[in-house]
């Protein structure tokens, strides 16, 4: 092997590890916990709902994994799967938005950063939306906004509660002002749901930040957070740059939000389904 090839190989391996880490997809037999660095057998991690058995770190889930963990057998039916983002501003940074969409669809096997549809949890019907951070950081553009609005309309139509799992870095800058308007659109739709006397449960997972938290993620009748999730309006780096101070430990994590009254509970993943079931049944009693 030439020395060039050797370097190339090393670089490639590094890149692959980086991508894996970013997507939180354990690609090997063994997975290293990002928090405690424990080596975990991949299948153990799966059976433990992708929570580190040693330190309790909650790995990010794809929308598919989340739905599988959460809903009653095969009760989820995806709707509006064929809405796709389009590069209407001809936005170009290091890559054009159009190409970025194509590449992300190929890589993630998703059409955008959210999956919606009717589902059953513990036997109760609900309208469920699950965001997926691996699709462009779960950023909210026209497609996510539209699907959230449609999901809420589905709940109104079926007279059932709406549940939204957020996993999002905020609004999708490549759609400019139109992404900002999705905050207005989704919040207005939630107002309608409320007018119709229907409950909304928001589950904030790591991360739920920016415009996502400043719209649908913070508007639940009940807000639930997964342990250790970053939930905030302005990210820690932005705040540090603005105030030029170090931030307190645990700042903007789920437990901190619970302490400050912004979420009703921090719920471990293994208790999530049962908790949601109990809450849904409470609302469902007529």
């Amino acid at each position, binding site marked *: 092997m030439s020395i060039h090839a050797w370097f190339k190989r090393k670089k490639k391996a590094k890149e692959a590890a980086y991508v894996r880490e970013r997507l939180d997809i354990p690609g090997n037999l063994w997975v290293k916990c990002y928090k405690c660095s424990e080596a975990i057998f991949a299948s153990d991690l799966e059976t433990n709902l992708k929570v580190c058995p040693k330190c309790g770190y909650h790995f990010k889930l794809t929308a598919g994994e989340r739905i599988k963990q959460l809903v009653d057998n095969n009760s989820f039916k995806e709707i509006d799967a064929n809405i796709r983002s389009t590069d209407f501003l001809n936005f170009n940074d290091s890559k054009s938005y159009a190409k970025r969409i194509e590449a992300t669809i190929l890589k993630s096997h998703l059409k955008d950063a959210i999956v919606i549809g009717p589902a059953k949890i513990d036997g109760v019907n609900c309208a469920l939306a699950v965001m997926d951070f691996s699709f462009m950081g779960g950023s909210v553009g026209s497609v996510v906004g539209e699907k959230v609005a449609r999901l809420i309309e589905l709940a109104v139509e079926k007279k059932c509660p709406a549940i939204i799992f957020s996993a999002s870095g905020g609004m999708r800058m490549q759609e400019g*002002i139109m992404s900002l308007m999705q905050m207005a659109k989704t919040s207005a739709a939630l107002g309608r749901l409320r007018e119709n006397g229907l409950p909304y449960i928001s589950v904030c997972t790591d991360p739920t930040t920016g415009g996502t938290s400043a719209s649908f993620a913070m508007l639940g009748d009940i807000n639930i957070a997964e342990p250790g999730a970053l939930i905030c309006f302005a990210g820690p780096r932005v705040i540090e740059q603005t105030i030029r101070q170090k931030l307190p430990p645990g700042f903007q994590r789920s437990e901190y939000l619970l302490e400050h009254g912004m979420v009703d509970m921090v719920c471990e993943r293994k208790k999530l389904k049962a908790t949601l079931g109990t809450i849904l049944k409470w609302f469902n009693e007529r």
Partner: protein
Amino acid sequence: MSDKKKKNNNNRFVLEFEKPLLELYEKLDGLKEVSSEGKMDMGEEIRLLEKRIETVKRDIYTKLTPIQTVQVARHMQRPTTLDYISHIFEDYIELHGDRNFSDDPALVSGIAKLNGRSVVVLGQQKGKTTKENIARNFGMANPEGYRKALRVMRIAERYEKPIISFIDTPGAYPGIGAEERGQAEAIAKNLREMAELTVPFIAVVTGEGGSGGALGIGMGNRVLILEFAIYSVISPEGCASILFRDAKRANDAANAMKITAKDLLKLDVVDEIVKEPVGGAHNDAKQAASFIKSAVIKNLEPLLSLSHRELIADRYNKFRKMGIFVEE
């Protein structure tokens, strides 16, 4: 691109791209001095020069690039919300406090009369000097600001008064206290509640429409924007440092994000562009205010006859249809 501002002896702030004006201003000042000393009548020359200045200004301002527009929107001397309120409304009485935590000086609100009609007005308040800006937190509201806004909107609703809001903020304040007191929740709640208001609501973007902090008081039945104001999901500098990996590429980011009044009108995010005086609102606050006043009155008129239900539907439909995507 540079946002360096030059200040000459007559207290004029001249932006980098306004440089061609600098020489003319100096000449004008010279002529005026001679004239005031009474040595010579320079009336005719002064008039001609003023005309020339107008032409050059108009020329410059019709060709502004997006990043130059950003500089005008952020101009230190650009009229603030309180300037507009004093020019546009009568009998303004400021209302303070969110009744929960404190009063936010970065967002002002009150009751007033518009052409004799009782209305509620509110908006972010920037300062014109460093001292003022520190007191006003540069127009960046905390959660209590958004909660105060909602409180006065509720007053408007209870007593059936239209709402006029003025948007001019770099964004909602990113600070520890703001996060602890629920900046995200405060904005989110405003969005939901604004959608359900039973009174006519006009929002006017007068300067910087900075992201969620702007939208937090911006869900009007009609959204107007001043000619050289901007409205954006993130500042060009922020976008440049995240997507372009270089804060210095703000120019590219400003071009890419489509943040000028014209672009926003094309995207149907705003309903109307309100003309500014030649050379921008900071050249003539009174005239800028009178343009805003007539635009607000004109847009308010048709809303006054709508029922509660129609007003909510009008606003809901407006925002519900925003978004561009492909459905296969």
